[in-house]
């Protein structure tokens, strides 16, 4: 009996692949032998037509992922290979786009890129040399050692654990290294406190860290030519359930984690849970032993809700603002100032006040205000975007200070508030499109910051979108209740709050001026 071939790939063109599939299987797309993308032949394709010569299955189209498309101009050997069995379903020279030159899926530094499990185009290990992988392992080992000295017992987790246990190797399609630890505590308050303490100790030792929840953060390490973030996921056991930040909430035994064991990863011993297969099963299901690079986590609703409520929401919209920050340039800092900034300049002159630009973005207003002779502090949680403005200011010897402030982290707001309160002077707080870009907690925090910063008098100038206009930018979070915001400001000590409804570029905005005396 012949076994039916499960997948036919009929063609590859600018639109993607034409596929006829009997079962749903993961396949790797390779360009000149390098994997750039993995898709499921059913799940990730759409029906196009019924081929009369191929039986009852429809032709399906697997469209190229958008981030990959802009690289697809030229000629290359394109193959489609079964991720699990290695069977080749397609292998031809193909011309895409203009068809001139060679197709290269690389970044500016010449590093090969591939689509990761979240659909992003990132440097992957598949196209990387032994030297790159060993540099990453060096970095992983030093982060593991640092975490141990900070008082937790880390192990490799998620894709890194899967690679170590199943193949003894870094998975080719993976793009990062994941680390986890299970806290000695069993409630979210202590788990978060411990995570803060771990971060504090690591920061003291000079590690660069970016927190993205109350129980997880990224540690940045530059290995070889690439700066990578290693994810560190905190977890805890309570009442027979393991919660490991990110994805896992499952019945679990403490003995399956501790004492930690070891596995070999690229010939080096790395720490793993006592029963790694239990954690792998909880993460990837009972089929974890079979390769599937396109595997997508489907975290149960219950787990998502628990993590959201316990630990998340500490940086609303950061992904968007981080992307924007990465695009900030010397030019973006010197655009025209906003009308609100001009008003802040006048007011600051009248009050002899310094200016706090909260949510300063690329620092256009801050730099302009500093150039008018004002003492300015530019605050943002995506602080990288302020680097060009800071450089301008340093060159021109302007009184512009750049500081990190995260309105959704009370530790950030309270400590900065305390710093400002200890140096009382009149201030103007400029908050342009902050109120509409943050959460309810962020709005409370802005009011609290004003109450601490404006003890010697001053004003808050805020502008934000209201309403649910479909043309509002996508970074707007929910709808701001202007009355509730005004009430918050009064509660924070504003003697007077004026609300004005205006229009900018055809969109309704609200200007709120709060006065502290």
């Amino acid at each position: 009996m012949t076994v039916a071939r499960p997948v036919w790939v009929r063609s590859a063109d600018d639109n993607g692949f034409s596929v006829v599939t009997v079962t749903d299987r993961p396949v790797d797309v390779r360009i000149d032998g390098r994997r750039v993308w993995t898709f499921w032949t059913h799940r990730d394709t759409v029906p196009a037509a019924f081929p009369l010569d191929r039986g009852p299955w429809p032709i399906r189209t697997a469209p190229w992922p958008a981030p990959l498309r802009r690289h697809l101009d030229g000629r290359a050997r394109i193959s489609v290979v079964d991720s699990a069995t290695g069977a080749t379903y397609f292998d031809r020279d193909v011309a895409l786009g203009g068809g001139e030159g060679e197709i290269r899926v690389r970044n500016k530094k010449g590093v090969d890129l591939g689509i990761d499990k979240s659909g992003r185009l990132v440097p992957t290990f598949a196209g990387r040399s032994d030297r790159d992988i060993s540099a990453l392992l060096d970095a992983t080992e030093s982060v593991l050692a640092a975490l141990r000295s900070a008082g937790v017992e880390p192990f490799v987790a998620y894709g890194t654990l899967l690679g170590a246990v199943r193949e003894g190797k870094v998975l080719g399609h993976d793009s990062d290294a994941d680390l986890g630890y299970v806290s000695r505590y069993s409630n979210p308050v202590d788990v978060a406190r411990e995570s803060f303490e771990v971060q504090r100790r690591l920061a003291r030792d000079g590690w660069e860290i970016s927190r993205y929840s109350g129980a997880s953060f990224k540690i940045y390490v530059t290995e070889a030519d690439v700066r990578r973030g290693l994810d560190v996921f905190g977890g805890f056991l309570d009442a027979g359930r393991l919660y490991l930040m990110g994805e896992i909430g499952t019945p679990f035994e403490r003995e399956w984690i501790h004492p930690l064991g070891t596995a070999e990863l690229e010939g080096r011993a790395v720490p793993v849970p006592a029963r790694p297969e239990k954690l792998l099963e909880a993460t990837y299901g009972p089929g974890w032993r079979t390769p599937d690079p396109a595997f997508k986590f489907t975290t149960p609703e219950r787990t998502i809700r628990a993590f959201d409520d316990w630990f998340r929401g500490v940086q609303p919209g950061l992904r968007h603002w981080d992307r924007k920050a990465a695009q900030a340039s010397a030019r973006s800092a010197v655009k025209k100032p906003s009308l609100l900034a001009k008003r802040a300049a006048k007011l600051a002159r009248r009050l002899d006040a310094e200016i706090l630009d909260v949510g300063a973005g690329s620092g256009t207003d801050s730099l302009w205000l500093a150039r008018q002779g004002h003492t300015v502090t530019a605050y943002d949680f995506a602080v990288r975007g302020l680097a060009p403005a800071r450089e301008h200011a340093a060159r021109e010897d302007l009184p512009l200070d750049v500081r990190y402030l995260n309105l959704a982290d009370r530790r950030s707001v309270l400590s900065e508030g305390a710093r400002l309160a200890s140096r009382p002077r009149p201030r103007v707080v400029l908050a342009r499109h902050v109120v509409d870009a943050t959460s309810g907690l962020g709005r409370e925090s802005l009011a609290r910051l004003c109450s601490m910063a404006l003890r010697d008098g001053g004003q808050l100038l805020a502008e934000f979108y209201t309403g649910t206009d479909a043309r509002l930018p996508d970074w707007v979070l929910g709808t701001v209740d202007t009355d509730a915001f005004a009430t918050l400001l009064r509660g924070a000590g504003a003697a007077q709050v004026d609300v004005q409804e205006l229009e900018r570029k055809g969109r309704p905005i609200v200007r709120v001026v709060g006065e502290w005396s």
Partner: protein
Amino acid sequence: MSSLRPGSSRAAVRRLEQRVADLEADVAEMRRHNVRLAEIVDVVQELLVPMASRDDEAVQKAIARFQESL
């Protein structure tokens, strides 16, 4: 669940659905206090003692050190 016997009315199911939704919201409300409490305890733990010393230099140093770890 006596209200879900065979033949129980749609209204009873709707009431239970509403109750589940309310319970989920109540749980979320309580769970959200966790990180809030952790943050506040962290600030107090790190800044209270230096502030109680009333030594301005020590206070400024403690704030700066604390902020470096955020």
